[in-house]
């Protein structure tokens, strides 16, 4: 066996992609089987089969082959979809996933799947003629590249759309060890370069199984210069030569075909008339016009966007470097202004300022683009939810429809990593506690099937994720009682809570509304963990609920964690940065408006009591308390910060202004510092600490206790 390690990474990536497609499509299959889905699913299984076999993972190849057979039977209408079948397909897919993970870890997989393969074959059992290997291939014994009707049509459509269609003959070097791998790489390279393989000789199955000599032929449609494609293909090792010939359909008068759109005026040519009576094996007869439309989209969709895979660490490094640049840009601009003040009307100063301005704009753009490069569509998290909801619903005997919106919404990958677990937990809650059992729903006059709506969208500088269900909702009265029962609140305190505040009780540590702890929801990860996870990345989670109608959770997240806007404030000769996301407003107050509740200083702001925290006192070991600043009869500056429903006022020496800052971690050596989340470097090179507002709130409630 040759060394395949260089392909392993590629294989694993691709396998993950195909597994993902399979998972989504099997779900779709269950909900609304369509020929389109079946085709895609078949393609994914087929690709996975081919690459796993080529890499020598025969068990995985076997299993995907068995799945492929089932899909094929579905596609040909020999079978129809059933829940049992879908469950078995999912079992198989899970096994393939496990195999892939094993391979990723140790390079091999020892998972045995004979039983699964058998159970998949049992599904096929009904149609005995359909032996496992019988993937129907019409015209198996073609010599040379001859086109079937639908292939020829696809080629013609491609020409009509202004694409070039070429016949490529690929010759492999004589001592090529794994011909199928090379063939696969050729196909993938064409795919990755925007080409579409319309037909091949021998067919793709034969290519997979190395049933060819040293050359094979492909019919390829592409909108790029074919020479470019050829030179890319020649870069694949062990590809000796690629012959290119442009393809023209000689027998069909193309002009005539192009004018058939209007119908009657066209002279009856062979091709269109032949088309109608021949029933396509996989597609129900559709009017020719609609069909060519379909062909067009079909030939467009497989063209992937031109992408390169980049290591995340490299992007992180780039972002760090840009961070440096942002700091230097500010510094250069500042120096420019200082020079200007010192040497007015000097030409050199002018051109320095001009250059500094230019560097500033370029840096801004660079930063923006690198930030964008780190963005991923939230799809990456959402993708696994349909399957999860389906399994959960089945387990709890509920009927649930998951509607997802805005999967294409992009956010920074660091945020994506953090948001995944909280979302899983909330969705579980919705299925487990939110949606009622079907019978109960029916008796309430609701549709038997509950709906969970998961949506993501951009809102200003934030991303808003909402999870909404039409289940039983939460009753503030019950929540108050539960809080008292669990000793979280005194009865008095509970009675004083507004309905909204009562709903927020679910985020309190140790609070779980489930009457019984279930396997799924009662795992000790409560809503308090959800909230602290969201808050850790500077997000906010809110809940809204109407008893009997449903519940809605809203999560507001920053787009990125690397660069934020912050309010800079001065405290005792040092500069602190307060993330703007938590700043509500700034106030200038007279010291005599400060009142005391017990020993705690407060002010009254628009009728509400606002507790004050002196940053100087908080950060000072020798507790200079708030009264110190009262001695000076000067006005005080207060920054009002919010965390969920709560607000406090931070007393600072002075306000400096708003600025974009690059977040840097405080040295690991210093460890966790209460009230500080990190540091940033200011334009003048000084270091400013970034406030961790949540810590300050904890501290206030500690006072209160």
């Amino acid at each position, binding site marked *: 066996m040759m060394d395949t390690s260089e392909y392993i990474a590629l294989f694993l990536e691709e396998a993950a992609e195909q597994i993902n497609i399979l998972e989504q499509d099997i779900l779709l299959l269950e909900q609304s089987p369509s020929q389109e889905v079946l085709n895609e699913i078949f393609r994914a299984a087929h690709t996975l089969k081919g690459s796993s076999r080529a890499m020598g993972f025969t068990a995985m190849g076997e299993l995907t082959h068995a799945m492929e057979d089932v899909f094929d039977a579905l596609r040909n209408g020999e079978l129809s979809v059933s829940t049992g079948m879908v469950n078995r397909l999912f079992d198989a897919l899970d096994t393939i996933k496990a195999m892939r993970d094993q391979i990723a870890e140790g390079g091999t997989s020892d998972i045995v799947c004979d039983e699964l393969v058998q159970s998949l074959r049992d599904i096929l059992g009904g149609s005995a003629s359909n032996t496992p290997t019988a993937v129907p291939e019409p015209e198996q014994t073609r010599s040379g590249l001859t086109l079937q009707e639908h292939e020829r049509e696809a080629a013609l459509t491609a020409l009509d759309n202004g694409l070039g269609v070429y016949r490529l003959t690929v010759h492999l070097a004589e001592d090529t060890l794994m011909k199928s791998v090379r063939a696969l790489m050729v196909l993938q390279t064409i795919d990755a370069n925007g080409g579409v393989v319309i037909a091949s000789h021998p067919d793709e199955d034969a290519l997979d199984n190395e049933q060819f000599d040293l050359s094979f032929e492909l019919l390829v449609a592409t909108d790029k210069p074919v020479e470019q494609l050829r030179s890319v293909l020649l870069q694949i090792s062990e590809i000796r030569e690629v012959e290119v010939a442009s393809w023209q359909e000689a027998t069909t008068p193309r002009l005539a075909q192009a004018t058939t759109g209007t119908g009657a005026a066209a002279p009856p040519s062979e091709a269109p008339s032949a088309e109608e009576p021949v029933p396509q094996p996989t597609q129900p007869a559709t009017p020719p016009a609609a069909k060519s439309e379909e062909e067009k989209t079909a030939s467009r969709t497989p063209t992937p966007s031109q992408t390169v895979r980049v290591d995340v660490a490299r992007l992180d490094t780039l972002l760090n470097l840009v*961070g*440096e640049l942002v*700091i230097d840009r500010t510094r250069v601009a500042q120096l420019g202004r200082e020079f200007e003040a010192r040497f007015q009307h000097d030409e050199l100063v002018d051109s320095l300022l001009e250059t500094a301005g230019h560097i500033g704009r370029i840096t801004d753009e660079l930063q923006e683009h690198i930030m964008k490069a780190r963005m991923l569509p939230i799809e990456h998290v959402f993708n696994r939810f349909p399957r999860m909801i389906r399994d959960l619903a089945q387990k709890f005997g509920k009927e649930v429809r998951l509607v997802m919106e805005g999967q294409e919404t992009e956010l920074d990958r660091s945020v994506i990593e953090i948001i995944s677990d909280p979302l899983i937990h909330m969705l579980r809650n919705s299925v487990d506690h939110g949606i009622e059992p079907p019978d109960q729903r029916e008796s309430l006059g609701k549709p038997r099937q509950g709906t969970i709506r998961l949506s993501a969208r951009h809102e200003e500088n934030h991303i808003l994720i909402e999870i909404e269900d039409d289940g039983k909702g939460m009753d503030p009265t019950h929540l108050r009682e539960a809080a008292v029962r669990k000793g979280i609140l005194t009865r008095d305190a509970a009675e004083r809570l507004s309905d909204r505040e009562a709903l927020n009780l679910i985020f309190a540590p140790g609070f779980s509304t489930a009457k019984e702890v279930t396997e799924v929801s009662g795992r000790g990860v409560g809503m308090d963990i959800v909230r602290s996870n969201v808050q850790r990345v500077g997000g906010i989670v809110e809940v809204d609920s109407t008893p009997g109608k449903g519940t809605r959770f809203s999560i507001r997240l920053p787009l990125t964690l690397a660069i934020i806007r912050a309010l800079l404030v001065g405290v005792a000769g*040092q500069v602190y940065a307060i993330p703007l996301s938590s700043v509500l407003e700034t106030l200038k107050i007279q010291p005599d408006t400060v009142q005391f509740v017990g020993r705690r200083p407060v002010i009254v702001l628009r009728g509400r009591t606002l507790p004050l925290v002196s940053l100087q006192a*908080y*950060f*000072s*070991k020798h507790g200079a308390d708030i009264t110190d600043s009262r001695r000076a009869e000067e006005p005080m500056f207060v920054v009002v910060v919010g965390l969920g429903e709560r607000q406090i006022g931070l007393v600072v020496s002075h306000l400096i202004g708003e600025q974009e800052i690059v977040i*840097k*971690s*405080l*040295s*690991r*050596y*210093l*460890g966790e*510092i*209460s*009230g*500080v989340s990190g*540091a940033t*470097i200011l334009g003048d*090179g*000084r*270091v*400013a*600490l970034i406030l961790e507002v949540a810590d300050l709130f904890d501290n206030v409630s500690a006072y209160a206790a």
Partner: protein
Amino acid sequence: MSTATMTSVAERQVVAFRLGNETYAIDISYIHEIIRMKEITFVPNAPHYMRGVINLRGRIVPVMDLSARLGLPAQDETAQSRIIVIEVNGESIGMIVDAVSEVLRLPEDQIEPPTQMSDTESTGYISGLGKVNDRLVLLLDVEKVAERV
């Protein structure tokens, strides 16, 4: 000393610096750079011997007061004061010293294990005693100094 039988004895290159009246030294391989004093941003709620953080060309580096760390009397900052930035286990840490004197070559056979000095808590941070021209140099156990408390 007398055990040296080879013509050349292994040497250790160290950077010598002053803390109060004593001369200390650090193995040169730990030293990232030596810089003049610069503005240090105080970090609240950190260990008492930590003076804060500095900006070292875009990196945030914590700085400790080495005298305080070793339990020595506090020294005033002077024009000779320096920050020695060391790298231990991938972490950069700055240490404030009173003055950096020179780079010394200490023959291994001139280094003795630390004796039970009557001295203070600093003893625990000394890995050896070197003698150069009849001067006593205290070799700092960098790993220990850099240990988090």
